[in-house]
């Protein structure tokens, strides 16, 4: 009788442990992680509207090497600007859980010749992804097959599709 009780208790404990362990493993994001997405950002402030239409490539090669490509246009106060730049990230760390958090240091931002986006608009966009001027943080949540929800420091930002 007692061995049946012990076995039952063991199963009752082992099942949830196994379930959580499976979830934990299932949510792990293997590297390299290449995820593409298109986002229309709209920021409103006291009647001013700033819109940024971007195609973005997030390429995480390793915990210490990643980059973030931005290509598109921005409109504000009747003016249109071109964005074409790469944000290089390094000195990273990865936290695993139901979400995976990638935290990197912004090494440099490389603009292409046609990129004429004013710094304040770019900084406004990057503020959604950064904790401080040089700490880039991204939360990645698996959403099913090849689909990932990306979160920044304040909120969810986009859904990307893994290549």
């Amino acid at each position, binding site marked *: *009788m007692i*061995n049946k009780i012990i076995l039952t208790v063991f199963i009752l404990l082992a099942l949830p442990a196994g379930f959580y362990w499976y979830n934990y493993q299932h949510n792990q994001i293997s590297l390299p992680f290449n995820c593409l*997405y298109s986002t229309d950002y709209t920021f*409103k402030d*006291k009647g001013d509207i700033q819109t940024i239409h971007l195609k973005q490539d997030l390429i995480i090669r390793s915990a210490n090497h990643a980059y973030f490509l931005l290509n598109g246009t921005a409109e504000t106060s009747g003016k249109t600007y071109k964005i074409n730049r790469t944000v290089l990230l390094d000195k990273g760390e990865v936290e695993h859980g139901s979400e995976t958090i990638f935290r990197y240091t912004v090494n440099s931002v490389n603009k292409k010749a046609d990129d004429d986006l004013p710094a304040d608009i770019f900084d406004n966009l990057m503020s959604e992804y950064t904790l401080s001027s040089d700490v880039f943080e991204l939360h990645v949540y698996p959403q099913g*097959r090849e689909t990932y929800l990306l979160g920044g420091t304040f909120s*969810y930002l986009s859904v*990307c599709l893994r290549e």
Partner: protein
Amino acid sequence: MRYIINSSIAFRVEDGALYRIESNDTVVLPIPAQRLLLIILESGGSILRREFLLQEVWDKFGLVGSNNNLNQYLSLLRRTVSAFGCEEFIETIPKVGIKIIDGVQIERDNTENALSQDSGENDNVIETRLFTHYTKGLFRIWSLKNIMAFSLLLIVLIFLSVIVHVKTGVDQTPVTSTLKGGCHLVLYSELNSQQYERISAKVNDYLKKNDKSCHPGVTIYFDDISSQSLYGKGRTLLSYCESDKKGINDVCLNYFFGDGLHYDK
């Protein structure tokens, strides 16, 4: 006094403990099994009739034994002795009785107090006896060490479950529903019906503004947060994903709305 079976298993008469000499694994037998084993060990290999056994084990002590009881305790003895490494011990003579299998060696050790002699090496006998007292029917070898090891394993499992649970959390579990039109709506918080209606209306409004429609094969990921931070009062994400024939998202268009800017204009 004790009996030694095949130089490897000992039965101590004083406390009815059957133990493996080498490893000291011990089982304290129930009293009928002790009496039965003693009779078998003293039989010298002769055939023991069922009637005789019933009389010596039960009747003599004012108890009523049955063939079932006898079979049960014989089975116990076979299993225990077998678990200790002597697989062939008792032979059944159909419709007659039992006998010790030829070749099994039985030695008698007449030391006056085998219990005290063994106490140094059988520290867990008393604990095992207590355990056995509460577990009639548990005839496998469960020493205190085994129980403690098992308990430790359970504690580790509980600890791991809690750690993993805390680490993974449940807050991000998406809640999926189907909107009018057939598309799926994925939300990231549990809503009551009023909140859900409000969010559904908001999603439909966003879809209209962006010339999108809700139809099967479309999944909308939506989240809406309010904030009183320095950087604005709220952020909304609506992702409009269309899937291919296999149901895998093929294209996703994201619409992100932020109230406020991160800098002063």
